[in-house]
């Protein structure tokens, strides 16, 4: 077991973990942040996307010990004072989610994209979401939502 400290959604969390524990399971099962989902086992689907020091990463492919001393933002940390983050709001308004399972990862990937490129074109959005799979929407409204959020 190793002692680590991760700042999660602004709170410093200290815990003991086995080296083999993946960040996503530490978030979900140790810290109770079940918003981040797991949908594959091959780093393909992006459902588990969180921000690590502000950039999108797949939390299924990071050991929790690798996040020691770093800042993690999950879907639970986006809304502020009861107000949805502009990307969340845009997903709501543009119907960018159906079953909702890919949504937290998709939203986090979009937040990361807009952090790097404030005004992406439709094709830039599509390319930037290449690592996030959705089975419900056909992506049309997801892309629309990201464009909308960028315009806010």
């Amino acid at each position, binding site marked *: 077991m190793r002692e680590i400290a991760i700042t999660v959604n602004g709170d410093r969390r200290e815990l003991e973990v*086995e080296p*083999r*524990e993946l960040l996503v*399971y530490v978030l*979900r*099962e140790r810290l109770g*942040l*079940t*918003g*981040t*989902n*797991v*949908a*594959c*086992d*091959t780093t*393909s*689907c992006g*459902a588990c996307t969180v921000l690590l020091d502000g950039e999108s990463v797949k939390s299924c492919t990071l050991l929790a010990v690798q996040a020691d001393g770093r800042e993690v933002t*999950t*879907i*639970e940390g*986006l*809304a502020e004072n009861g107000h*949805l983050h502009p990307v*969340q709001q845009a*997903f*709501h*308004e543009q*119907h960018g*989610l*159906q*079953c*909702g*399972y*890919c*949504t*937290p990862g998709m*939203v986090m990937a979009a937040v990361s994209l807009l952090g790097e490129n404030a005004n992406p074109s*439709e094709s830039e*959005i*599509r*390319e930037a*979401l*290449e*690592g*996030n*799979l*959705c*089975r*419900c*929407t*056909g*992506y*049309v*409204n*997801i*892309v629309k939502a990201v464009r909308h959020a960028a315009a806010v």
Partner: protein
Amino acid sequence: MAVTEHETGIGASAPRKEDARLLQGQGSYVDNLTLPGMHWMALVRSPHARARIKNVDLSKAKAAEGVVAAFSGADLEDGWAGPLPMAWPVTDDINNPPHLPVATTEARYVGDAVAVVVAETRALAKDAAELVEVDYEPLPAVVDIEAALADGAPLVHEEFGTNRCYTWPLKGGEDVDELFKGADVTVEERYRQQRLIPNPMEPRGVLAQPVTATGEITLYSSTQIPHIARVTLALATGVPESKLRVVAPDVGGGFGSKLQVYPEEALGIALAAKLGLPVKWIEERSENALATHHGRDMIQEISLAATKEGKITAVRVRLTVSMGAYLMIITPGTPLLGAWVYGGAYDIKGYEFECSGVFTNQTPTDAYRGAGRPEATYAIERAVDALARKLEMDPVELRRKNFITEFPNTIASGLEIDSGDYNAALDRALEILDYDAVRREQAERRERGDAKQLGVGFSTYVEMCGLAPSRILGVLKYAAGGWEAATIRCLPTGTVQVLTGTTPHGQSHDTTFAQVVADRLGVDYDDVEVLHGDTSIVPLGMDTYGSRSLAIGMAALCNASDKIVAKSKKIAAHSLEVAEDDLEYDGGTFRVRGTDRTMTVKESAFAAWHAHDLPDGLEPTLEETAVYDPSNFSWPAGTHIAVVEVDTETGAADLVRYVAVDDVGTVINPQIVDGQVQGGIAQGVAQALWEEAVYDDSGNLLTGSLVNYLMPSAAELPDFEVDRTTTESPNHPLGAKGVGETGTIASTPAVINAVLDALGPLGVTDIAMPATPERVWRAIEEARS
């Protein structure tokens, strides 16, 4: 997000009620649920497609850290009250093998469960499962549909002496042999519907919670069918139905793959009861590829008879379908859900259909989005294009010449299409596309001999939604009914609970059902709460599949709302001291004709609750239930057009435009309907271009992860241009038809027809799905040589 400022009535794009929790990471998916004392189950699965199980040594697993129990199939065999359910014995002589949750003597596909362990944590259960030592004697396996029917083929179930499961025929209209004899032109086509893996984003999961003192069990399952699961799992596990509660919490997509009753659900119940512990199992993606049912997988032979002018007179179809290794809940019936619609949207005289089910040593097949109708649409739409090629006619012109134009219309297969206007959808789609401009560009590229050629493909489909009239299901030997139930409960404070027996997994029931109730009863959209997916809260239901929630569930809801209005009217008449006939009703308010004296449904709910002054004989409280059994299917239809760019050097086919014009009847929420269509299109396009469950000759799945099972991302797909035409269904209280599967049903042939259209001048007339770059390249090479 608390107060809705948007329009919310029928026909408005009301913002979704589901979103607030899902967007903030507060969904209740099974893996998000934790119970005190919860233990984890892990399954040991056969690495062989067929093997005798000689011995299962659990000793090392049992001794491993954190393990509380481990069982082989033989250990559990006597504890089952019945086999896993198979609810659709399509013929009297069907071969239906016994199917227990854990195999006892023989494993019959890679992924077949052979042992199970229960441990304190997810990781320890996984570690222990690796320590189970199974002594297998590998046996020859069969993984090809036609090889399975060959003489001397290895038998999946030796007791039957054959791999044939059943043969089911259907005939209708005029004599098909005569029509073929008299035809000027015939086409005979053979297509392969590749095996697909449904892959909802949320893999399956199970959490079973026992109350040992009473024998009650609650099963949380990522399922589309909590009600059907309750009935069938009671039969399989022996837990009395009255003591079994099944809950489908938030479910992260299903697409038919969770229209199933799975070994892990039965195991969860059985082991929770046996061990007196809450037991949880969460499927991993690579496990899902093996252990969750697959879809499609059939050989289709279709022939058309036609006149030289292009009038199709008869359709003859023969299907040979892989069942996989066992019959799951509707495995045999799934291909038959398309049996009536291989004639497509076309006015034909004679129809002949035959389907044979075949066992193979593979994951069982069952319903996958569209179930039967995508296959049918693919076959007829491709065959119509083949006929157009033969007659050198434009595929649009040929379709127009054959459209059914009069409704209702009893089609040759015997069912009645309720309503439609197929030319209207085609006209609108051509207009959006600018057909002439696309053909011009295509001609220019051909002229120049560009490496990248353009193709345009059509699919003018009709499908049947809304499973199903119970009497028809009875005739077809399906074990259950097709009705649906709804309850409306007007609470004394003015808010309303809606209970629906349908169970959403992304389709937005919370929103659309609330829209209709708010509209009809004059209550605020925000004041309507829709409950579903819990057999203790909603005891009556037949669940969600086959685009039935709107077509059947919403009809039940409308009937319940009529009952509420009727009772409310009695209370209003009594309070306002007038006869019921003196009241007019509009949007939740009763008004005494010609006066300003009114009473609302909301007010009547309070009056019904305190019950101080109700009409004689009227029961207190305002709550009504309706159970609706449809009189017919509903028949969405439309035109989908794909434009692809095919790189004739690399074989890469790129979808560049997609136009869809659908007629789904009355639309409750346009934004949600568009979303259903768009998602469906992506799935159908994925079948055409990317997805395939590939097995090697020994029965190993080679595409068992999302690295090699190619679900497309946003980067692979274009925007979809969707629009609608509307003819109302005369059989539905709102005129709605259903929309959950149209996109998937329509899109696959549009894309393949487009690929073939692009390659036509090179002499290519056939391509197998998915149309991979390699297949396209080989088709071109073959046509050249």
